[in-house]
């Protein structure tokens, strides 16, 4: 895994964002808006460095296997190093590339926030943490990055720390992510105990040594992946995380951090390939999450929450892909998703910014004229996420769904197809309700932003969205052809298999997906975009929100069940221990000892009457007893 050597560029990739974070954090009050330049440069430089490092590595080795740099021994048996192989390359490029665009966008989005330097410090820190995660060559280093991205996510969700909702969401996200962290920790225990090493190379070379523990290792690794990637049942933090600023949602909760689970599963493919039951588990959870996220997306009205559920659903696809063994397809979907989802979030951010922080799509409408760049870019992205032929999502989603069938999971194949239809429906619902018809809110089109006196130039937000929109179209072309660049890149990374042909060919799959998607779009059009629907939009939307099934509004009761199963019992136990068991029972026993000694003392104190002469008498009495004793003995020795 990677050619050993000295690669100073890896340090540049890894540490420049950290330096940016430190500078912005330490000198934030002095830097003010200049922090945006440092913050953006700290992400742009690593992007270039990543490309250069990759070039250097491929040139020196002649093949796409990557670069490996040893760092230091963290603890005996825990050796750290940096690894840039095709898998981490793709992630590093997305983190720094899309990350750079989002940083640039943030310059405009956060312009009037007084804590802009702190924002860029946190964002830089996040990129550093995420790079630690993907560049690490071992599980503990990965776990360090894993925890640090959770911390960055915590800081950024709770960035507006005076909002109690944001603070609560940040705490929830962090605690659920710690569940994932400790699960990975436990997987590390098993690997360390059975294999004696924590580096990827050693672990994957000795998968057999795990024997009976293999499934459990996979299971615990996947619990970690599920917590980070918002897979059922650990997904409940992701929609709440939308309380953070929109660029944060785009970078952390859509493009990069939440896909860490996909990275982990793809990285550990030798483990999954060795355990069929683990593959089945991961694929099933991924498929279920894809379906559940899509269903929940139907019932939401908050533009960012719709996107959050769509993120959850799309990551479900990726997890399904890497879970069933279609690793290239899963990673490809991550790659295209990063562009179109970031584009959707940033476009939504422009709309939200335009409407003075309104996020409810029922109070939007007609935004086509007010935010044209967002309209066109998001149109491309919505087509991409729906899987419209020719757009980025089409190629990758197709591969994932077909991969499920190819690897022998017809049920997951069916789930993937159904979900694709629902996805097209709710994404176009979002699109039509937001951009078509007439404006239904009450923000004056000529309004000046309330939160600050000055404005950043408009292009600074529009340009990144436009670029991402373009990539939402073209990113998929890396994956087509007879020997596409994508497959060449991963030729040495993932196993090549000869799978038996399946009943439904790839062409048919594409056709079925297209029909289902078209049906979804058609239903959305009929409900939201026909002239009749647009004319009666306010009344129809109100009616729809009143008739929304409770099971969807309550989000399949996941929050309630988790609350009822874990949170409430823990608090009850804490109260029971803290206010009765500890002070009354345990300490009661201690105080009982004290009472016992006091009672004994009451008996003894009877003799301590303070009369000197009675003490003397007792002494005499004692002496007399001795004398009599020895007299009876007859001798004093």
């Amino acid at each position, binding site marked *: 895994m990677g050619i050993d050597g000295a690669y100073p560029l890896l340090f540049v990739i890894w540490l420049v964002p950290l330096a940016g974070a430190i500078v912005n954090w330490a000198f934030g009050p002095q830097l003010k808006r200049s922090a945006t330049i440092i913050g953006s440069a700290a992400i742009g430089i690593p992007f270039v460095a990543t490309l250069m490092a990759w070039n250097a590595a491929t040139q020196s080795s002649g093949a796409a296997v990557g670069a490996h740099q040893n760092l230091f021994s963290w603890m005996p048996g825990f050796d750290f190093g940096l690894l840039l192989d095709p898998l981490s390359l793709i992630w590093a490029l997305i983190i720094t590339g899309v990350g750079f665009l989002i940083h640039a966008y943030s310059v405009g989005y956060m312009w009037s926030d007084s804590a802009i330097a702190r924002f860029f410090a946190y964002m830089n820190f996040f990129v550093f943490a995420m790079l630690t995660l993907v560049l690490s060559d071992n599980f503990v280093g990965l776990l360090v990055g894993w925890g640090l991205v959770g911390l960055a996510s915590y800081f950024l969700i709770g960035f507006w720390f005076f909002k109690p909702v944001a603070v609560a969401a940040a705490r929830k996200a962090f605690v659920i992510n710690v569940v994932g962290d400790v699960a990975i920790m436990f997987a590390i225990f098993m690997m360390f105990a059975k294999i004696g090493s924590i580096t990827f190379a050693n672990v994957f070379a000795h998968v057999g040594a795990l024997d009976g523990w293999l499934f459990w290792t996979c299971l615990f690794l996947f619990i970690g992946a599920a917590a980070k990637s918002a897979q059922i049942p650990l997904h409940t933090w992701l929609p709440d995380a939308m309380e953070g600023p929109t660029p944060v949602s785009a970078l952390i909760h859509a493009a990069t951090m939440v896909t860490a689970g996909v990275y982990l599963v793809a990285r550990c493919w030798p483990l999954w390939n060795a355990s069929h039951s683990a593959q089945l588990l991961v694929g099933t959870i991924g498929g279920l999450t894809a379906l559940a996220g899509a269903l929940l997306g139907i019932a939401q009205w908050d533009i960012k929450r719709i996107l959050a559920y769509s993120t959850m659903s799309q990551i479900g696809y990726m997890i399904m892909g890497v879970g069933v063994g279609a690793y290239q397809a899963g990673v490809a979907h991550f790659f295209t998703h990063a562009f179109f989802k970031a584009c959707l979030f940033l476009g939504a951010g422009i709309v939200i910014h335009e409407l003075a922080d309104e996020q409810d799509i029922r109070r939007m409408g007609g935004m086509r004229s007010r935010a044209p760049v967002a309209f066109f870019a998001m149109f491309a992205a919505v087509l991409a996420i729906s899987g419209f032929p020719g757009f980025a999502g089409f190629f990758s989603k197709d591969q994932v769904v077909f991969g499920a069938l190819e690897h022998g999971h017809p049920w997951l194949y069916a789930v993937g197809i159904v979900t694709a239809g629902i996805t097209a429906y709710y994404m176009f619902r979002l699109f039509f309700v937001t951009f078509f018809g007439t404006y239904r809110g009450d923000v004056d089109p000529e309004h000046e932003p309330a939160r600050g006196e000055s404005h950043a130039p408009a292009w600074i937000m529009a340009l990144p969205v436009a670029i991402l929109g373009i990539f939402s179209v073209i990113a998929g072309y890396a994956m087509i052809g007879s020997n596409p660049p994508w497959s060449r890149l991963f030729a040495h990374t993932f196993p090549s298999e000869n799978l038996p042909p399946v009943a439904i060919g790839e062409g048919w799959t594409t056709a079925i997906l297209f029909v289902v998607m078209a049906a979804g779009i058609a239903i959305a059009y009929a409900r939201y975009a026909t002239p009749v629907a647009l004319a009666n939009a306010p009344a129809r939307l109100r009616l729809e929100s009143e008739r929304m099934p409770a099971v969807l509004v309550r989000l399949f009761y996941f929050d309630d069940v988790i609350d009822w199963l874990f949170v409430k019992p823990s608090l009850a136990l804490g109260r029971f221990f803290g206010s009765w068991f500890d002070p009354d029972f345990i300490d009661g026993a201690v105080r009982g000892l004290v009472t016992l000694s006091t009672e004994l003392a009451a008996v003894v*104190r009877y*003799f301590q*009457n*303070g*009369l*000197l*002469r009675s003490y*003397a008498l007792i002494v*005499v009495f004692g002496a007399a007893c001795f004398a009599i004793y020895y007299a009876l003995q007859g001798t004093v020795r």
Partner: protein
Amino acid sequence: MRPDLLPVALANYVGLASVIFFIGVAGVVVRRNPLIMLMSIELMWNAANLLFLAFARAWLNNAGHIFAFLVITVAAAEAAIGLAIVVVVFRSRANVDVDEVALMKG
């Protein structure tokens, strides 16, 4: 034992010492005046001293003499401290009845 060294029989010393000692004991137990009690304690010390000296002479062992000196020293110190306490107590309550000085009772 050589009779010429001890003209008076040892039993007499022991008897006298016992009498003095028990007079002292009775004094401590019966009297309530601390001065008298201190004097009674002195009597007990001296009864012991008498025995030390008598037996030292009888057995020709100087340890008894040495102990007698030790006892005298300790007794002097004890008397000094005792009297000091008495003076302090007298100052604070103008009364030196030991039965009344019972602050330390349990």
